[in-house]
Each structure stands twice: as C-alpha cells, then as structure tokens.
C-alpha cells in the first residue's frame, strides 16, 4: 500500500536549498488534509545536522542515506539509493525541487520506477480521499497551464519550481523520526566523475533567495549600461537578473537568467529595466510580490503585469534613481 508524501531534499555547501523547505511546507499542508505523513529523503555525506531543520519545517520522518559516494549529487548514485528506498517504503507522492539537479534526477528516477513524472509544477493539490495528486504546470512557453494526473502508477512524481510556495515558519519544538537508510552503493555504480566546480561570481545573495531583484533586458542597450544595474543592486542590497535577450547579448551570465528557460524568482520587489515582458520571461517572475517596470515603450507587455510602471528612458531613470538614492544617503555622486 502506497502512502505518504516524500520530499527529496537538496543541499549545497552544507545548506538545504530554499526550495526543499518550500516543498516540505507544501507537503505538510497536503498531508494534513489527507491524513498522510511527510517524509524527507536526505542523501549526502555528513549530513546529520540537516535533519533538524527538515523536521522543524514539517517533516515527520527523515530518511538519511549517508555515504562518501553521495558527497556530491550524481545522477546514478541518487537514482539507485532513492529507488532502493522507494521500493521498500512505497511512497504515494514524491516532490522534487525543479532545480538543475532535481530535473536531472526526477525523470531518471521515474523511468527506473516505471511511473509518471510532471516537470516544473507551479501548483499542487491532493484529493483527500483518493490521494490523487493534481500537478499543474505551464506549457507552450507559459501560454497555457496544464493539469496533469498520474492515476494508475505509483509513486506519483513531480518537480516543483522554486519560489512558488511560501517558506514554512520553522517550529523547533516539532519532533520527528530519523531513519538511517542502509546504502548499497559501489564506486562502479556511478560512471560520471566530478572533476571540478566553478562558482559564478555575482552579488552575495543568490537569485532564488533575493528579496530585491534588479533585472535588465534588451532595452539596456549595451554591456556598459547593463553594468549600471549592478551599481543599483549594490545600493539596494539586491541581486541582478537578466532576460534571455540580455543573456544572449552577453551582458550577464546565463545563471542569472530569469524566465521559462531560466530561473523562477520570488522577491519582494522585482525591478525590471528595459524588459519588454515576453510571456517566457513573465513565467519566471510570478512569485514576485511587487513588479516594477521601466520601459520606453508604453505598449510593452510588461506593463500589463506590472504593479507599478514608468514609461520613460531607462537610462535616464536609472541614472536619476542611482543619484537620488546616493543623495538621500549623503554620498557624493562622484563614483
């Protein structure tokens, strides 16, 4: 009998990813409505201290699979260990963050388990009686939303975009069970070899965690003008993002691209300079509390979804804004 909602935890540099906590929070809500439990699956090496935050966020049980070969994510290592575990515990539903690793893992795992998987979901629901999940996801470049079900195969699986569900408030008084998973993994089970990792320089705060995002598009016109967005971001304690056009122009690295083929963000304020607002871009900013757009074209689609918009020259407005923030803080405009 399949039961319970499982969340595959993802962590980087000893920290759980924000999306993992968002999914634990959402799973908690779904589980409470349907009298199920929330189970987190935590793979890694020396990851014991990550169990407590998962329980505080809402997990009832944390399955810890610790092994030196799991120190970094690998497709084959994760797939084997998780498939072995799921063969025993038989989950009803599995939630995986729609990160690069999550979207590498989920389809591989689904093919191994012979079940269906829905990619990049933005809404989740679970039938209280039957436990049938409804996975909602954008398709056709964000023009439509599709509701997907997986009625006759178990487990029901999906990857879920970061920044669509709120972070749960940690409750340090919650208690939960920690189950140690016996890991059966040999070196030869993993055919890829990790030889390096090059972190991308950027603002201190990652896009997914940023509360203020200063974003630029084709309308910035040049790499030099685009670079001024970094100055504004530093003044605001925010992070710079870019539309696909700006990334393709080489003004900003790919990892800062927001939209259907980039990242999904959910800041308090999304400040869009010179971004027309193609639906593929808008698809990535739906989690923003407030969207503010500056664009010279009054007809730009970004103004249809913006909470505040300024029709005007992006360069002049940007320059005036930087100057006025500096003046307000008593800095000279000299640098």
């Amino acid at each position: 009998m399949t039961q319970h909602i499982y969340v595959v935890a993802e962590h980087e540099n000893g920290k759980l990813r924000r999306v993992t906590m968002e999914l634990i929070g959402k799973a908690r809500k779904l589980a409470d409505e349907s009298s199920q439990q929330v189970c987190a699956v935590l793979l890694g090496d020396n990851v014991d201290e990550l169990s407590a935050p998962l329980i505080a966020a809402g997990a009832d049980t944390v399955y810890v699979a610790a092994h030196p070969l799991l120190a970094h994510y690998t497709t084959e290592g994760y797939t084997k260990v998780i498939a072995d575990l799921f063969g025993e515990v038989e989950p009803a539903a599995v939630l995986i963050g729609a990160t690069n690793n999550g979207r590498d893992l989920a389809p591989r795992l689904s093919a191994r388990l012979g079940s269906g998987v829905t990619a990049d979901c933005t809404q989740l629901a679970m039938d209280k009686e039957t436990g049938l999940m409804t996975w909602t996801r954008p398709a056709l470049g964000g023009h439509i939303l599709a509701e997907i079900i997986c009625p006759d195969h178990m487990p029901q699986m999906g990857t879920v975009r970061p920044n669509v569900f709120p972070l749960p408030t940690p409750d340090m008084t919650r208690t939960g069970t920690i189950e140690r998973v016996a890991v059966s993994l040999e070196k030869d089970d993993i055919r890829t070899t990790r030889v390096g990792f090059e972190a991308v320089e950027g603002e201190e705060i990652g896009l997914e965690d940023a509360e203020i995002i200063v974003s630029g598009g084709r309308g910035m016109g040049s790499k030099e003008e685009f670079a001024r967005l970094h100055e504004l971001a530093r003044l605001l304690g925010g992070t710079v993002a870019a539309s696909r056009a700006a990334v393709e122009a080489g003004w900003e690295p790919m990892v800062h691209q927001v939209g259907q083929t980039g990242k999904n963000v959910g800041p308090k304020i999304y400040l869009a300079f010179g971004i027309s607002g193609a639906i593929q871009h808008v698809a990535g900013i739906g989690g923003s509390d407030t969207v503010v757009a500056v664009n010279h074209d009054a007809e730009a689609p970004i103004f249809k979804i913006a909470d505040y918009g300024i029709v005007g020259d992006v360069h002049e407005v940007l320059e005036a804004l930087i100057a006025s923030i500096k003046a307000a803080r008593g800095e000279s405009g000299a640098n």
Partner: protein
Amino acid sequence: MNCIVCIKQVPDTAKVKLDPKTHRLQRAGVENIMNPFDEHALEAALALRDAHGGTVTVLTMGPPQAEEVLRESIARGADRAVLVTDRAFGGADTLATSYTLAGAIRHLGGADVILCGKQAIDGDTAQVGPQIAEMLDLPQVTAVNRLACEDGRLTVTREHEDGYETLTVPLPALLTVTKNLNTPRYPSLMGKMKARKAPIETLTAAELNLDAERIGIKGSPTRVRRVYTPEVRTQGIIWQDLTPETAARQLQDILGLGGRKDGAQA
C-alpha cells in the same frame, strides 16, 4: 565516433499568441520548427564527427510531417535520418516517448554519444533525455554547455544554479545540451540539395518490436486532465511623461514600501 541526435518538431511557441478576447491560443499559421535546443545538439554531433570521424544519425518520433526537421538536419550535415512514426505512438507522454525512442536507438545499434536538446520549447519538460538514458542503461549529463572528447571519454560542463560543474563520462553516454554549447551551422547549398533527395528511413511500432502496453496513450502513466489559460494580473499603476527625477522619486517611494502583499502566494 557515431552519434545519434534526438530531434523534435515543435510549434514556434515564441509566435503563439493569445486571442485577447477569448483568451484562446491562436495557433493557426504558427509554423513548425526544429526545437531550438536540438539545433545545438545536432551541431555538437556534427562537430564530434568532424573531429573524430564517424556518422551522425538524426532521429525523431512524430507524424509524417516531422520529416521536415530531418531534412533540415541533413541540410546541415547529418548523414542519416530516421523517422519513428505510427498511429500507435499517438498521445505518448515522456515515459512512453522515451521507451519508443530507446527502442529505436537499440534497433539502430546504439551510438557512442546520444545527444538531445536540454528541453523542447513546447512542453519544456526536459525529461525525455534522462528517461532514454535510463532505459538504455547509459550515464547521462544534462544541461551541457561545454564538451570535449579525448581517449574515449567525454569531459563536459553542466550548468548549475550557482555555477558550472565539470564531469568526465565514459562512452557510450547520453548528453542534453544548452544553447550556450555552440553556434549551429547554417545549411549549405549542397546540403539543401542533398536533403531534398535524401532517403528518410521510417520505423513503425511493429518493426521496433515494442511492448504494445508501453507505447502511445496506453503506455503513458500521466494524463492531461485540463488545459486552461492563466489569469492575467490586475492592471497596476502606470506613469507616463514623468521627468527622470520625478520617476526616480516614485521608484524610491515604492522601494521604501516593499511590504509583502497578502495572498500573493498560493
């Protein structure tokens, strides 16, 4: 170095528009194109062949008209084109599609490198590549943006949230590639002439000896229950004809507020 490239014909989603009144998709007149990510997968295969010898086979599953993207691939330099087509494949989700494509790849005798675009722009699932890799028991690397081959091993870099991860992987392997990997070549005049006459091999369900329970709608665990157009956000406050200084002051006010609105999250 023999490569198989999985290609998909997709509607040009950048040109799909919503009817402003009915909120229905206006797909009439939207042309079908080669999935843009697949152009980069094909280019990677052609570059591997040019450097190491071998052949490039392009493979697609779809209706008979999907032959168009195969001819385009030949025009760009592919050696062989295979269309997997059968009414029995209709309605396939990603699992049934990858089962079918994996069967076709096996039928073709496999390859040293199987290349796919990172995702197709119509579904954006990015699932078929990894699922094929699993069904063929191959190592996979997804979202590849750098690729080199030496001594029977690939060195690849994959795009990550916070940077770039470099891996080595033995052959045979399956890769899914991003647009940052390379710049696709244009079809040559010679290529275009060749493409017009090139034979397109077709494979049906019977020829692939597939399990009828695992193809098409029958073999698809997932079902689309409903499709609808997303709600448009309510109109915000738009200012026109402000001086840059006034605009800056408005922005500062907004930045000063910045509180979370209730109910903004599902």
